């Protein structure tokens, strides 16, 4: 590959493709949206579907604030392209409660005061929901390790671990 000069770089031609139609089942509801190929799943949720519960923290997959469940698995939505998730089931923080009844993790986070500013909380809770579904964490050490993709700048970690531990021990099927 020949070195690219600055002049050659500025002459690079980037295409202007038409928007693509994507179907996502978000929190149980089928949503059709027209997005550019470079629209991330995070931006599709926040800006196209007005689901602003999912947070944009670093936008580089380092903080975990954008964590959502795609087909039941937790991922960083800032590093996923919406077009690549066509047909997927997406669960965000808005989809965890059943009506007025909080998800067990949401209730445990309230009970344990597992947040301060709250910005990382939707990602923490979605990540913990993924962790429960995976069934790999059994001890506080394992919870800490498998939650390490979610950063809390307020340092609420001990209470986050306690909240998740409470739900884990209340749900025998969550243990292996």
């Amino acid at each position, binding site marked *: 590959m*020949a070195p690219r000069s600055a002049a050659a770089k500025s002459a690079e031609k980037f295409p202007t493709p038409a928007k693509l139609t994507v179907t996502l089942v978000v929190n149980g509801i089928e949503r059709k949206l027209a997005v550019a190929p470079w629209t991330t799943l995070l931006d599709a949720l926040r800006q196209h579907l007005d689901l602003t519960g999912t947070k944009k923290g670093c936008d580089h997959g380092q903080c975990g604030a954008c964590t959502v469940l795609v087909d039941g698995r937790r991922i960083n939505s800032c590093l996923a392209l919406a077009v690549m998730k066509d047909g997927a089931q997406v669960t965000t923080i808005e989809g965890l409660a059943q009506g007025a009844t909080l998800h067990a993790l949401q209730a445990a986070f309230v009970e344990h005061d597992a947040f301060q500013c709250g910005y990382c909380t939707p990602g923490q809770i979605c990540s913990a929901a993924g962790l429960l579904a995976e069934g790999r964490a059994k001890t506080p050490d394992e919870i800490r*390790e498998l939650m390490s993709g979610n950063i809390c700048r307020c340092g609420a970690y001990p209470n986050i671990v306690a909240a998740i531990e409470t739900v884990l021990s209340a749900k025998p099927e969550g243990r292996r």
Partner: protein
Amino acid sequence: MNNFEYSRAADVAEAVRQIAADPGAKFIAGGTNLIDLMKENVARPTRLIDISRLPLSRVEDTKDGGLRIGALVPNSDLAYHPQVEARYPLLASALLAGASAQLRNMASTGGNLLQRTRCYYFYDTATPCNKREPGSGCAAVDGVNRMHAILGTSPHCIATHPSDMCVALAALDARVLVTGPGGERAIAFEDFHRLPGDTPHLDTSLAADEIITAVELPPKGFARNYTYLKIRDRLSYAFALVSVAAALDLKDGRIQEARIALGGVAHKPWRDREAEARLKDEPATREAFTRAADAILRNARGFSHNAFKIELARRTILRALSQAAQASPQSQSDKRIAGKTPQENTSETGRPR
């Protein structure tokens, strides 16, 4: 992120046709590294070819008793695959030492092989970097190079390969299966990643029109005497300063075969077959392990901020070989360093505690 066209490939042959037809195109699978590089303007593809739906997600036995891992198997599925846990626990451990649960759910086996360095200057388009912009220079050689390489460097690049998975695959003598316009070929793992030399923009020996379809493991998995020991600035979710994949085949306290691969110290997972061969028929003692560590690091060279890595690597090799000999592999969730310190005994073949 720049504008780009998006297309999907229906099968491997079509993926190869699409990439061969468009020099500005890149494949995308998990996207965890590529999307990040595109957001930083370091990668600027004009087309992304989505290969995430290709049928390359199977883990299956090979005829010779090894294991074939499809290129699209997510890192998390691979780490927890029963065959990998039972027969290749070194690989499972290395996978769990890397990234976060979310990223492991997204990241593919093939994509992990093609991860690019996390050198700060490679990521910073305001600085020179021979890997990003060939011929522009290396800002790391005289810059902040604490994370950088101590082995196999060149005046043009001192970047490290960031993967943990690849360190285990190097130790296990894996093969990378790729398909191009001319058909399929297998690349020995140590020939897959390159040293920087004067072409640091080339990370691997994969051709521009080839796709990785699978990684194959030989039958020998070193499932008893192994460890993956990763030393980093924080206990989880950080790249290695030094990591060591160690595997031993022991008989009556003597080494039949030793494998030692290092991460975080070079442009590729680092193996020294000469040093490994010298361990053959040696007793598994601290003295033998020290000689091996010294041999592996004989040509190590530190830069202004990373000379500490040479001694760190020496101690990590020593500790990893002790863990492997004691059959007490490092846990990736209990962060206490496993095994007795080598000073506590001379024979490292005691039963696990």
